[in-house]
């Protein structure tokens, strides 16, 4: 059974649809990349899948007993967080908040999980540093480590590499690829179509026309070829 199944989903704000009649499935272990022009509704889709906003119509089914506290999320960067006084460790361990249950404080298990996530993201030496003093790439690693603490099965990433230089971008993609190899299901919004096509198993293209299928199918589809040409011309 699929981890996530979306049927005839329409989403938008205040009753006005941005994307309509979406249908797709995400199987455990797959790597789905969501592409589309700016403003096409990729972030809105992420938020709807996470129940941060209500769908206009249609259904979202979480299969395999997937619960909200098994999902990790890396939001698109917001300015608000940037002046917040918090250490890297405090932010990473806050990814364990759903494991608290009725407890008030993090225990051994959560601390070990946070340490492990920081090790995987290679930010152990930044543990006590203030988040706002870090570079953009380091900040993204911190948020990814936090998402890892929350993710037991699936991780949703919204433009994880925007604003990062090519070297850091490559490193981050490598980390995400490794996660996928370890069995974590990935759903990623990306601008960067070429990388998306290298790593992803499935592609969801939203915009004026919608496409969902495997990478191969996308490459040979009309919409895929058009988008590739257009994006290729820009870079």
């Amino acid at each position, binding site marked *: 059974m699929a981890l996530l199944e979306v049927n005839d989903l329409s989403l938008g704000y205040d009753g006005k649809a941005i994307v309509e009649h979406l249908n797709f499935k995400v199987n455990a272990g797959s790597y789905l990349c969501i592409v589309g022009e700016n403003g096409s509704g990729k972030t809105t889709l992420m938020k709807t899948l996470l129940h*941060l906003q209500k769908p206009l119509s249609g259904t979202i089914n979480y299969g395999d007993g997937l619960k*909200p*506290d098994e999902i990790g999320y890396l939001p698109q960067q917001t300015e608000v967080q940037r002046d917040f006084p918090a250490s890297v460790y405090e932010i990473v361990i806050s990814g364990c908040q759903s494991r608290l249950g009725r407890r008030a404080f993090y225990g051994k298990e959560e601390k070990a999980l946070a340490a492990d996530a920081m090790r995987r993201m290679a930010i152990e030496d930044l543990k006590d540093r203030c988040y706002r003093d870090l570079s953009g790439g380091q900040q993204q690693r911190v948020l990814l480590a936090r998402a890892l603490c929350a993710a037991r099965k699936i991780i*949703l990433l919204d433009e994880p590499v925007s604003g990062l230089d090519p070297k850091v971008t490559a490193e981050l993609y490598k980390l995400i690829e490794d996660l996928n190899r370890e069995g974590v299901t990935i759903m990623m919004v990306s601008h960067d179509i070429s990388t998306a096509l290298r790593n992803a198993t499935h592609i969801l293209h939203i915009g004026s026309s919608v496409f969902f299928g495997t990478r191969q199918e996308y490459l040979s589809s009309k919409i895929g070829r058009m988008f590739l040409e257009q994006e290729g011309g820009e870079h």
Partner: protein
Amino acid sequence: MDILFNYLQYPFVRYALIVGVLIALCAALLGVPLVLKRFSFIGDGLSHVAFGAMCIATVLRMTNNMILVLPITVLSAVLILRTGTNTKIKGDAVIAMISVAALAFGYLIMNLSNTPNVSGDVCTTLFGSTSILTLTLGEVWMCIILSLLVLVLFVLNYNRIFAVTFDENFARAVGTDTEKYNLLISVITAVIIVLAMNLVGSLLISALIIFPAISAMRLYHNYKQVTIAAAVLSVAAAFAGMIVSILAGTPVGSTIVAADVLVFAVCWIIGARNGR
């Protein structure tokens, strides 16, 4: 020193010190998430609501005015939170409207009723003047119990308050009931404001909430340290302010706030030297 020890022999002075320190502690703890969530204006609005409620209590000649003021303020906190998160109505405008309306009607009610000393009463309610020294034993206990309750709630929910303050969307996405914690924050704020009315009066409460948090943020750069530093700075300023006010005979509320401003100035300079 002798004068001070002389004063400390009076139970009402000791009460005042205990209550003052507890209130300053609670206000500072809550101040950190309020400032970071850009919620400090809610505190300001609520303090004016509390003023209006206090005026009604005074006119009704209620002996224990908290019985009226506390529920009204808590209720307003809930309402303000509801409208504040509603995107259709401008949250800050609503709060400004409620708060000036409460001020105006409060003063009007005081004047219409034939209370003997209107300007004195209003001044006391707005600036706190000497009321901290005239607390009854019942009020002292109520203050102690409520502030301990606030403290316990704060400590038990520390990690979730951090999570909801740092990134509300993420918290919701991973299944945290963010509305519950936002409600908790605003109800606790309302309780603190009602308590603090006795100490500094309704116009100066915001200072008690905002200054220690901002001062601490100049010195420290992680959440735990900022929280602890805000608590320590606030208690120190409140204690010093009360002692000075007793010795020099200055009004309690404004002396405490002056101490908070002084602390902020020092922290600002230290922060600037550390290159911030």
